[in-house]
């Protein structure tokens, strides 16, 4: 199988030139096969967001290689990077990151408008993902008029609307209550299974992580363990994750 993400010897150092450099990522190697659903777990401060930001081309690494869909992203210039993100990537963050001055429809449509898609295509695509995520009633509202769960669904719809290769999620359920979190994770599984979009998600929450096919555990900037779901049911996998976390934290 082809890899959609291929990370080799990735290092990230904050304040590299100062008295106290901080090694946030140390020699990380990571592969995600095309169409996979992978979670990265770790306690707060372990470097999850840093890793995601580097992979998502939002932050430059100190050294190492990041190949996304066979493209070495850190060889691209700023404009090429922006285009690359616009075509291949989708993002869902903990804080929803919706644009308050745009309606739900326009928020979802934004990646397509940026790609200069024709109006008819935009309408069809937005309606398609809105149906998928049960947002058809909400399209004319503004983000401030939505609940947290709805906002995150809008963010998911926006991440999905341009049929990216890969969706990155940073604690996508972090601001949601458990019912909404479960719903969100179901949607993500569905997107992964039905639209064949790979997902890489970081979270500190075992329940959310148990929806993935594979979980890497991050500690102090290094991947220390990997669990695979295989043929287990999600519930069994969740229990395995909890068991592991028990030993991991001791």
């Amino acid at each position, binding site marked *: 199988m082809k890899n959609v993400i291929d990370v080799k010897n990735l290092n990230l150092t904050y304040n590299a030139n100062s008295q106290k450099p901080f090694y946030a990522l140390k020699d990380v190697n990571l592969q995600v096969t095309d169409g996979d659903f992978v979670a990265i777990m770790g306690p707060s401060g372990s470097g999850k967001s840093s890793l995601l930001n580097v992979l998502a081309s939002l932050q430059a690494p100190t050294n190492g290689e990041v190949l996304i869909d066979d493209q070495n992203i850190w060889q691209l210039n700023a404009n090429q990077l922006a285009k690359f993100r616009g075509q291949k990537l989708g993002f869902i963050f903990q804080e929803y*990151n919706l*644009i308050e*001055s745009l309606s739900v429809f326009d928020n979802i449509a934004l990646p397509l408008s940026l790609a200069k898609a024709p109006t008819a295509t935009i309408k069809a695509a937005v309606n398609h993902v809105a149906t998928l995520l049960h947002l058809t009633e909400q399209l004319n509202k503004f983000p401030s008029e939505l609940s947290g769960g709805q906002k995150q669904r809008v963010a998911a719809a926006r991440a999905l609307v341009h049929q990216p290769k890969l969706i990155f999620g940073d604690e996508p359920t972090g601001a949601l209550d458990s019912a909404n979190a479960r719903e969100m994770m179901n949607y993500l599984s569905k997107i992964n299974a039905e639209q064949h979009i790979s997902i890489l998600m970081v979270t500190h929450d075992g329940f959310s992580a148990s929806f993935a096919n594979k979980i890497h555990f991050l500690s102090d900037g290094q991947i220390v363990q990997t669990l695979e779901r295989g043929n287990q049911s999600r519930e069994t996998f969740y229990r395995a994750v909890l068991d592991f976390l028990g030993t991991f934290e001791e």
Partner: protein
Amino acid sequence: MLTKIAIQTIKTKWKDLLILFAGLVISTAIFYMFSTVANNKAFLTANTSIKSIVVVFIIGEVLLGLITFVYLNFANRFLVQLRQREYGLLMMFGANKLSISRLLFMETFLLGLISLVLGSFLGAGLTAVAGSVLQKQLDLTLPHWQIFNSTGFIVTICYFIIVFSLNGFFNQLYINRTDINKLLQANQAAEKTPKTGAANFITGIIGIALLILSFVVMTQLVAKGTMIFMSLILAIGLNISGTYLFIRSSLTLVLNLLQSSSFANMGLRKFTLGQLSFRLRAFERILTIVTLLFALALGALTVGRGYELSTPTLAEQSSPFTININQPSKQDKQLISQLQGVTYTKTYQYKQLTHEIVWDAAQFNRDPLPYYKAENSTLTAGVPKIQFGTAQQINKPNSSEFLIRQTLQNLATATNPNHLSVGNTVDARKFAISTAPIKRVTIVHVKNMTAQPNAQILKKLTAAQTKRFPTLATLGVSGAYGFLVISKGVFGGLEFMGFFLAIAFLVMLASTLMFKVLSNVETDRRRYQILAMIGATPGQRMLANAVEIAIIFIVPLTIGIIDVVYGLPMFKAVMVNPYIGLTSSLLIIVSFYVLYYILTVVVYQRMLKKGDK
């Protein structure tokens, strides 16, 4: 604990606080500047011929008070927004509401007091600098000019103490009424969703109607002097409310229309339109006062420029020669030879008898006398062509040539204190017979009497003549230059006030607009990061931002220019042609405004980037 939190706030938010503080100081300084002039009655009455000038300035002060009030109110809300999270935290840790609200009152009041003190100093400095630079530049010395006026100062102090106390009480009330949770979510919900629907459509139409009505009142009532103060106040009221509704609703209609058209679907257009329709709601009050300030600045400059430009023209129209030198001395001749752009220099001889002045006819035939043809031209027609007439024409002028006698009459004023009751005879024989001593008069015409070195030389020549012939001290040296000096005495005050107020209004405008626009950086930073994530290139983001700010700048510019175009006829009572200074003033103010826009965008984008990784 309290001081610790206060210091922490200053540390983390010093940039915001600095913008806030600078804004407060500048608004105080401008209010001081205006009050100093507006309350200097001796200055106003001594330097203008307009009886109602004092009342006009009182209306102006009320208007500036309103503008400043809106601005201070906005600044106050900005302060509360900066501080309320800390207050929420304090309350969560158990501080009681009463002490917190007292603290906020004290903070508001103290901030106001410090800006009042600093602003007054800055105001006095600005008044002094602008006053002396302008007087020098316009070549004026205005009696009763002050950089400190006790009434003006008291008005300034009272005004700001009242407004800051009101703000303090308002803040106290706000803290008392708002629960901790709301306080903690300080940065959310600062923007309102744009209005749509029938109500908005109606207010949009009303806004346009009020604006048009204000123009009708300006041009039909105020300009014609009908119940001048009542109609002036009416015009101002209609204009302010019209501008407000226009920005609030009429523009939203346009934006809604654009947003639903296919024009909006490309790239970041929809984002920009969305930003604007949110912004216009949040900006409605500030943009209204910015529009007023723009119109006031442009209007004041146009009037000032109008006087500056029209007085030389009026002066040229008054006489076909620039200056008239009687019995020129060696030094006078030396000075005359240094004049630049000389059209002609002529010297005539005359003899002064008891009851008449006798001129040699032959010299006018050799070197004809300049005059203007009497046409039924108005003063606006510009400077007529200079004609030259011989002795024949002087003695028997036809109906269009009679002004030639006036030129002759003006020639010998200096040596002849009773010149008005004395006849002028042009006769070669009489001149030859008379035994009176020969006197000489030189007249010069230069193309530009206000440019250097001419202005300087003419001033020296005038001084020398006046010294030698004391009657001229009251009569004035005849010629266009003498007329110019007298007109400056009459109109110089208004000219000066125009320029002075234009500077004050522009500074206030700059501070208001920059402050408001920059107060959005925090909200916008996140949005632009999201855009970057979604795939907008740095160029696209910068452009979207520049366009958004441009449109916010264009709104007051457009309404302000229209205001001035329709408002200028109100000055018909005190100016021949109020529009004469419009083009150059527009050029000056619009270039200033464009530069200012560029500066704002640069600062804005720098601040946006600061937060990026």
